[in-house]
């Protein structure tokens, strides 16, 4: 199956800082999604981004499919950005393979 590696595993930020999370994957994919799991356990979809760049408020994501990686940018971080960020990939096969996640802690 496809291997998904996320880095860094943990990230501590001061409120207002910017950060970049990375997702590498081992094979060509045509489905890539970023999720945020908040401290209460809810999984929220941030982006569906198998290629290209998207922005949503302070968050943006870029996927370079030919080089098998995706980046998630958090700008002007807030305490509500704390949680675990997951990258998940798939190939036309009704299943997403998830990375181990990046745990982000934003301190006030």
């Amino acid at each position: 199956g496809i291997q998904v590696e996320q880095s860094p595993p943990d990230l501590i930020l001061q409120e207002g800082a910017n950060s970049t999370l990375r997702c590498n994957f081992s094979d060509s994919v045509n489905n890539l999604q970023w999720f945020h799991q908040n401290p209460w356990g809810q999984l929220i979809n941030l982006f569906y981004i198998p290629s290209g760049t998207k922005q949503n408020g302070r968050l943006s994501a870029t996927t370079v499919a030919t080089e098998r990686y995706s980046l998630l940018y958090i700008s002007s971080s807030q305490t509500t950005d704390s949680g675990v960020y997951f990258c998940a990939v798939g190939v036309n096969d009704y299943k997403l393979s998830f990375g181990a996640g990046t745990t982000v802690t934003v301190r006030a």
Partner: protein
Amino acid sequence: DTAVSQTPKYLVTQMGNDKSIKCEQNLGHDTMYWYKQDSKKFLKIMFSYNNKELIINETVPNRFSPKSPDKAHLNLHINSLELGDSAVYFCASSQTEQETQYFGPGTRLLVL
């Protein structure tokens, strides 16, 4: 207004018991999923359904039996619960397998 709902939210039970988790989505999606999240927060697909038909069974023990009575519902029945079944189970849905997945709130199962 909840897009994907699950019941119950919490489930505490003894080893050997049988339990069910229900999932409903009101998004009109054709595809539904069950995921298991372990204590290290690793998420793994268990089952995928499309239009009530099982598409993926990701080497899940046959003690786990999903059922989809219609496109809006996907239930999970677990027989003879074991300690290792303790986890958070998430239901999700998407319009097709290539589109955004929306997750339910999760069911926290603890087997004693």
